[in-house]
């Protein structure tokens, strides 16, 4: 059942995909919590402090699962990808060690103060605790993205006498242009997860006629920040990410787009299924010349198709890559539609009464998770067959002494354990949402039931 290479790949893919379900909400909520705390500090309105306290409880549960599923990631570089670690550890070990020293210590110190120290710290002190938790988690995100970016587009290195990869420029590694754009793209994705979750809980409260003031606050913040993030995700971040791929990974671009034939004025496939054996795109729905325009800003620009590259340079799972990419882009487009239209309704003061829109917001909550997962699949499948683009093939990176059966055993172990963790997460988060925020002590100058006021 699959070679050692396949199971090691699946091992990492599964554990990292599951892990990333948590940090994306952590990083998104960290920003939203700083926003809530800032409003509370500026206006002196306790409503926002209580709202932040509610989200801090969800944040705490989510953070804990991010921590426990994150620890295995660092170890798996050594356990399952020993040849890769031996060659590249001198480079990517830098960013991984920095993550421990610079962000995990920061996060672990301030998280506890943030979750349990509000009374002791006072208003300003507690704002700083929230701020440092935000800085820690976003810094951690950068160092991980920089690690991945180096595998996508290695910089600041040279090959040593025994073909080992040596770091030659620290700043070349840290300020890799690929890392900067990938970071923007990843973080905007995380912010959208945070916004969709916050808006969904808000919609749930408003639709079920409970905690209406909190519901409205969550909707407002989720929708406004979400609309900005969704638009920025399209441009400049998505656009620049695409340019990076066009420039440095032309094979990946062709595979993502399902473009086999090189051509001037290449079309953009909206739908269709790649048939790799026949080298065609079945039942395509295309926009003529659009791909040329998007990649080179020129309607008739020449775009290279897969046929231009030897097959041993092609990503090995082109269909999955193609679908992942199209799911990501499709969902990103839908997010813009949902969030911008909700923001419009909010501006016209109609959002809280537009029950159909609230239903959409509430039910959309899985979508950003799917989009972020599909995005990472696109990045990592697109890099194939390389583990380090142009330097080391994935087939040469795994641990030579760890047999496929051992890796299957631990993979299945992780699957079982993570199933339990997923159920725990759902149970505890649902419970917090059910318990809800502290009751409003002061009606904020309005009637307690907003439908009466309206």
């Amino acid at each position, binding site marked *: 059942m699959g070679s050692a290479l396949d199971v090691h790949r699946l091992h990492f893919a599964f554990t990292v995909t599951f892990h990333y379900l948590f940090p994306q909400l952590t990083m998104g909520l960290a920003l939203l919590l700083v926003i809530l705390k800032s409003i509370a500090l500026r206006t002196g309105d306790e409503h926002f402090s209580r709202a932040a306290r509610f989200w801090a409880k969800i944040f*705490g549960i989510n953070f804990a699962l991010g921590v426990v599923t994150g620890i*295995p990631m660092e170890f798996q570089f050594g356990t399952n990808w020993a040849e890769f*670690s031996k060659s590249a550890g001198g480079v*990517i*070990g830098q960013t991984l060690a*920095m993550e421990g020293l610079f962000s995990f210590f920061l996060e672990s110190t301030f998280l506890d103060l943030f979750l349990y120290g509000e009374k002791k710290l006072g208003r300003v002190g507690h704002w700083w605790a929230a701020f440092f938790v935000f800085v820690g988690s976003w810094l951690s995100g950068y160092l991980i993205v920089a690690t991945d970016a180096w595998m996508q587009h290695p910089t600041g290195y040279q090959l040593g006498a025994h073909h080992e990869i040596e770091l030659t420029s620290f700043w070349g590694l840290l300020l890799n242009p690929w890392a900067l754009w990938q970071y923007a793209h990843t973080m905007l994705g995380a912010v959208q997860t945070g916004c969709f979750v916050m808006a969904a809980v808000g919609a749930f409260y408003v639709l079920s006629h409970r905690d209406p003031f909190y519901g409205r606050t969550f909707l407002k913040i989720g929708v406004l920040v979400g609309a900005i993030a969704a638009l920025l995700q399209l441009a400049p971040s998505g656009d620049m990410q695409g340019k990076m791929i066009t420039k440095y990974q032309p094979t990946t671009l062709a595979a993502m787009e399902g473009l086999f034939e090189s051509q001037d004025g290449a079309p953009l496939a909206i739908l269709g299924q790649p048939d790799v054996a026949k080298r065609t795109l079945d039942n395509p729905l295309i926009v003529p010349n659009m791909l040329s325009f998007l990649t080179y800003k020129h309607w008739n620009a020449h775009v290279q198709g897969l046929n231009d590259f030897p097959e041993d340079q092609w990503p090995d799972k082109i269909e999955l890559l193609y679908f992942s990419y199209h799911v990501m882009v499709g969902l990103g487009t839908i997010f813009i539609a949902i969030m911008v239209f909700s923001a419009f309704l909010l501006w016209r003061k109609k959002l809280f009464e537009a029950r159909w829109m609230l239903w959409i917001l509430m039910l959309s909550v899985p979508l950003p998770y799917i989009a972020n997962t599909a995005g990472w699949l696109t990045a990592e499948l697109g890099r194939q067959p390389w583990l380090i683009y142009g330097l080391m093939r994935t087939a040469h990176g795994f641990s*030579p002494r760890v047999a496929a059966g051992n890796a299957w055993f631990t993979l299945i172990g992780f699957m079982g354990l993570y199933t339990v963790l997923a159920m725990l997460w759902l149970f505890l988060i649902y419970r917090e949402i059910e318990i809800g925020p502290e009751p409003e002590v002061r009606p904020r100058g309005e009637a307690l039931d907003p439908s009466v006021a309206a």
Partner: protein
Amino acid sequence: METLWFCLVAVMVALYVLFDGFDLGAGAVHFLVAKTEEERRQVIASIGPVWDGNEVWLVAAGGTLYFAFPALYASGFSGFYLPLMMVLWLLILRGTSIEFRNHIKSPIWIPFWDFFFSISSLLLAIFFGAALANVVRGVPLDQSGYFFEPLWTNFRLGEQTGILDWYTVLVGVQALLVLMMHGSLWLQWKTEGALNQRAARVAGSCWWAVLVLTALVTAVSFSVQPQISENFKTWPLGYILPLLAVAGLAGVQFEFRRKNERNAFLSSCAYLLGMLTSVVFGVYPMVLPARNPIYALTVHNAKAADYGLKVGLAWWLIGMALAAVYFTHIYRSFAGKVSADSTSHG
């Protein structure tokens, strides 16, 4: 440069054991010292604000090892594949237990997590001891620079060793008792009342076991790993390290009798520091000894390129200074006994 990094990684590992050691130990003695729900809550409260930060030392030390000695990281982690995966599962179970225990006040939910907290702490202490013993004893490395150890073979110290043999099991038991003592001393320092007294009793009994096991393990280690006696002969100044351990262990008993709870715990830290530094001093320049000594991984053949090690030193110093600030701050704000009605952590 590689020797410096050898020392720095050793310091980080030692700090991990000092810090996470007491919360692992507290977990291992959880049911021995805390009988009521209120007392168990106090145990959790006494480690709640710090355990996560303590565990970061493991991740930070692992990352530092990764970039300073990539060949060691690759060989060691893939060679210890199965036990390491179990360590990861235990760490997941333990973290989940501590964080979720207080979420629901139910007579089913709380003991459930208490059990997993305690059993995972206990097993981790044994695993870490056995892992250290594997390094001291040496692993079946060959010319490829890799190995794969089964969980056990015939429990003898032959060419084809397993993770568990009589020596590594012995050290595993020692590690458990040492951390139980360390954790009990921490709990004694941080708590009051019946819990405090039971922790003192457990620490007192563990001390004698630790004394016996330390003497025994030290004696056999010299024959298990010949490099140790060679190093002490070459650099007699190294005797300071085992002396520190002896002084620390004596200090534990001395301060314990004087009822100076803080100093008893700090003496235990000195003991741990002395023991761990003695071990790494003993195996230097090897980072991973081999059963066949010619295949050993040393600081020279496992290190990363010089530029990386140099540039790493700059940010490492900054990072460690920051970590020192955070730790001083958090332990200072967490000073004193935890109260019975502590609301921290849930």
